[in-house]
C-alpha cells in the first residue's frame, strides 16, 4: 500500500527533526569526549584542530552545523505551534525553517573556507 498520507511538508519536517535529533544525541558524547582528550595538552589540541582543517572533516562539520540549525529552527517552529496562538501557513513556516538552516550552513562554510 502506498503511504500517501506522509506526502506533505509538515511530515518531512517531522522526519528531519527526528533524524537530526537522534544524530545530534549520538554525536554529543563523542564531541564532549574528543574535546576533553584534546585539551589535556595544548599541543594535542592544536594537532586535533589541524586534523579538523581537512576538507572532508570540514564537510562533516558543515553537515553537523546543518543538523543543529535544522533542529533549532524546527524546534522553534514546534514551540511556536504548541505555545503561541495558531498561525495558518504552516507549510510556509516549514519552508522558512529549511531556508534559514541552509543559510546558517552556508555562512559557516563561507567563514570556514
Amino acid at each position, binding site marked *: 500500500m502506498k503511504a500517501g498520507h506522509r506526502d506533505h511538508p509538515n511530515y518531512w519536517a517531522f522526519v528531519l527533526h*527526528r533524524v537530526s*535529533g*537522534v544524530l*545530534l*544525541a549520538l554525536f*554529543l*558524547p563523542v564531541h*564532549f*569526549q574528543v*574535546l*576533553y582528550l584534546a*585539551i589535556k595538552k*595544548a599541543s594535542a*589540541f*592544536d594537532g586535533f*584542530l589541524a586534523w*579538523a*582543517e581537512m576538507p572532508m572533516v570540514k564537510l562533516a562539520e558543515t553537515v553537523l*552545523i546543518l543538523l*543543529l*540549525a535544522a533542529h*533549532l529552527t524546527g*524546534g*522553534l517552529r*514546534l*514551540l511556536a505551534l*504548541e*505555545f503561541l496562538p495558531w498561525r495558518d501557513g504552516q507549510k510556509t513556516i516549514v519552508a522558512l525553517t529549511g531556508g534559514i538552516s541552509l543559510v*546558517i550552513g552556508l*555562512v*559557516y562554510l563561507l*567563514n*570556514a573556507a
Partner: protein
Amino acid sequence: MSAPNIQTEARLWLAQRVSAMVLAVCIAVHLGTIVYAVRGGLSAAEIIGRVAGSEAWFAFYSVFVIAVTVHAPIGLRAILNEMTKLPKTRVDLLCFLAAVLLAYLGLKVAWRFYMLGGA
C-alpha cells in the same frame, strides 16, 4: 504495563519544551561563536584564551549541558517507545543512563576548559 503515571508524562513533556527554550538561546550563541571563531582558522590558544578561567563561559556551558541532559533523553525515550519493541521500563533505564552520560561528559569538559585558566 499498568496505568502509566499521567502526571509524570505530562511533566516530562513540559520539561522537554522548557529545556528546548533554553537550548534555543544556547544554540544560537553556540552557532554564532562557531562562525565567528572559525574565521581565519581555529587555534588552541585562541579558544583557551576565550574560555579558560571565564566564569561566564563556564556558567553558559554548564547551563547548555544541563539543558541537553534534560532535552535529549526525553526525545530518545519517545522514539524508542514508538519505534522499538523494548519494554518501557528498559527504555526508561536506557534514557536515564544516557542523561547521566551526557551530564558527566559535558560537565567534565566544561570544567576542564574553565580550570585551564587557573592552572
